[in-house]
């Protein structure tokens, strides 16, 4: 049986993009975003939970996401993030940019 693949760190600069993608269907709080990233990558991506918040603040200050207070499953007031219209546009942009990048890198990395 093949050993399960080792988790990898998140590629620099891609966390923002993934947060936006996660928020596309609807709102989520910080913990949920981290968990969703990990689940959707089949636990391959290890999110540094601590580094999530600077990223969220950055996106918020760029007005790509907005935050509202709601009660979390642990019965606390927590900030729930959702995309702004600008954020939605940004997701589309990031999508095509990512596709191009992956395509390009794949070609570069293909075995000679």
């Amino acid at each position, binding site marked *: 049986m093949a050993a399960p693949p080792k988790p990898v760190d998140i590629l620099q600069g891609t966390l923002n993009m993934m947060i936006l993608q996660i928020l596309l269907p609807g709102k989520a709080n910080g*913990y*949920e975003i981290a968990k969703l990233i990990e689940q959707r990558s089949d636990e391959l991506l290890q999110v540094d*939970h601590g580094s999530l918040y600077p990223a969220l603040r950055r996106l918020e200050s760029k007005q790509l996401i907005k935050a509202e207070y709601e009660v979390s499953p642990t019965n606390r007031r927590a900030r729930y993030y959702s995309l702004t219209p600008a954020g939605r546009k940004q997701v589309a942009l990031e999508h095509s940019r990512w596709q191009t990048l992956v395509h390009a890198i794949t070609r570069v990395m293909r075995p000679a």
Partner: protein
Amino acid sequence: MLSRLFHLFRNNRGLDAELADHLAQLKQERLDAGDTPDQAELYARRRLGNPARIHEDVYESTPLQPLETALRHASFALRTFRRNGSAYLFAIAILTLGIGMSVTMFSLVQAVLLKPLPFPDQDAIQVIWKQDQVAGVALVELAYPELGDLQALKAFDSVALMPTTLYGYGRVLDTGHGDPVQLESTPVSHDFFRVLGIKPALGRDFTDADEQVNAAPVVILSDHVWRTYFSADPAILGRQIRLNGAGVTVIGVTAPAIDFPRGVDIWLPLGVNPMKERRGATYLQAIARSRPGYSASAIQAQVASLFQRQARDYPQFYSKSQKAVVTPLPQYWTGSARIHLWISLGASLLLLLAACICASNLFLSRALARRREIATRTSLGAAPRHILAQFAVEGLTAAILAAVSGTLLAAALIRLLVLWAPADIPRLTEATLDPRGLAFALATAALAALVCSFAPAWLITRLDLDALLREGGQRTAGSRTGKRLQRVFVMAQTAATVLLLSLCVLLVVSYRAMLHTDVGFANRDTVTMNLALRGDGFTPQSRDDFYTRLLEKLRTAPGVTHAGAVLLRPFEGNVGWDLRYEFDFEAGRHRNEELPSANYEVVTPGYLATVGTPLLEGRDFRLTDFEKAEPVVIISNNLARQLRKSGHDPLGLRLRFGRRPDDVWWKVIGVAAEARYRRVTETGVDLYVNYLQTGIPTNYVVVRGTRPTHELVALVRQATAEIDPRQAIAGTATLGELIEKDTARHRFNMILLLWFAACAVILAAAGVYSVITESLAVRTREIALKVALGAGRRRLLLEITGSALIFVVVGELAGLVAAYGAGRAAEDLLYTVTAADPLVLASVFAFLFLVSAAAALKPAWTAAQSDPRSALQSD
């Protein structure tokens, strides 16, 4: 306090709550999976990471609002201040001193020199006289007919004449109630106020008609005379007042600020004097308003060529060696106060600079001590600009605090100086802390902030972070650069201090010399006062009679030991009665303008004994030296020495004033010690003649006795009233006070500089001390090792202090060069000492070196004495 506020920001942003929620969800996740609460807690904490760190990261990564940035830096600065409290307090105290002193001086300069005079377009007004360097006369006066000559010049819009001196034109005002008073009057030609660009506040200006000989007498009153003697009566216009016993019509009252010439009480028309026709009657200077478009050099050239034409057209009155002196009114107004104040302002700025350097040095020391902290922060991702901003904010915070306290200090100092300043600096009493002063304070604070943040910032750009973190921050990268910078600071500061100290010592030496100068008046308690006889009907004979009777009365009064009278008392002004003279043995050998001139004094017998000018040879005047008897003269010792050198015995020689064949010959009957009549620092030849043998009156009474001054004055007043109740005395002062007043500006300047220099020396010592202390702090282990290995303590001391003291010496040398230059520029203020005086320069050098050495040795000695074991074990 700020950090509390800052905390508020954090809570508002909800990060704490958010992280707590995150933690709870992580924990719940593990609990659901079956972990114990402890395990779950541990996992959650590990997964999320250090909340403080997240806070930091969030701050570092989010673009901040400007307000928040500022608050953040300020809060950090305050925290750092608290941690390094004493050092920052010291820095702020130093800056306070520097800012306070310089703002004070700026406010004085502003009040005296920069604030415009109450005359519109003041720079267009010129004061004009002549000087004759060939004859050595600094002030050759003009005569009334030259008014027309000057008015013909295209450069001038209007021209007026006025006397060169204030004294000599007094008028006795009969107030109608109480004693008569003497007022200082200035006769002026009728365009006087038009040249100044003002009109009387009440009534009318002088006109051409007022200036005709035999015109009805009119007067313009100054505001203070109008208020003091006429209770500000608006109906004063057209009223007759009694001046010198004659009725004079008041035609105007000036605005309050009009005080030109300084100290004037009333203005009279000049041209009513029949002397107006004579070109030889020189006692005037001109003021002129230039037309727009004429430069200073163009005006100078026009006046100069006029005076040359005069010498050609009237060779009997003027000589070609007479040169035009054209001074803008603002400069004329402030006179020698100008250079004194600029020097003090310059000195205070030097002190400010020294204070900035010293404070900057302290900030640099702190930065050096915090190298590791900075390196850590940088490696954790703090952008260099953030750290720079933090230092800038620290510098700015210190500068703002210092500016506030410095301004308060300045406000107090200004009040103090205004109370204590010599009265003869014009408008000094008007000095206040005005908006310009505040703007200046702001500028100084900006300078301080810049200097204080510059040094640490520069250091950071030089930091080699890797090396610093690797080596552990003891004796590491960045420290060498920082040390070098600190030593350059010590050098600059020492140079500034030497400059200040040298100037100060030069002034102190000069002042000491002034105090100890034998001015020729031994009896400083002699009371002097103006008693120029006013009114119609006086002849030379009746004036002499008045004085003869007065002095007789005084001499017989109880408690009076000496009494006399003189034409012009000592130190009454820069201009006296200067007359040219020649001796019989050289008669006719020189042209008139080549003759030497001497201070001419008409005195009564007993005058010299009263003021304490010793008679060295021959005899004093006697009441028997009558008009009909042979004219006699007493000369001063410096002239007697000259005569002896050329082989003549002064006694018995004869001299005459001028060289006209009909001038009478005066026989020298005595030699008096030298006396200084113009200024304490000015020597000259004095010639005394007997009041009975000349038509020129004595105007000042001198009296000495065993009674206090005010009783002597009352005695003179009473004796005067008994002989002629119309007369009034004015300007009472002892000889000591007159001498004091002559040196007051110098003393004022000297004391200010003394203050500045003392502060600068303390700052310099503090600078050296902090550099040594700082260098020792990072070398504790090294020194301990050396001591443990048996290094001699003396050698160690030399090694520790030597390197810093070399910079002190270099700074001192640079300062001495600057001091020499500054001293040369201010040579006019120096007396009996030159800017290159080796003793002064050497003692300043030695003194500052000793102070620096002591400041360096103190911490070095402590370090060398310390037990090496404790230092070695501390790490």
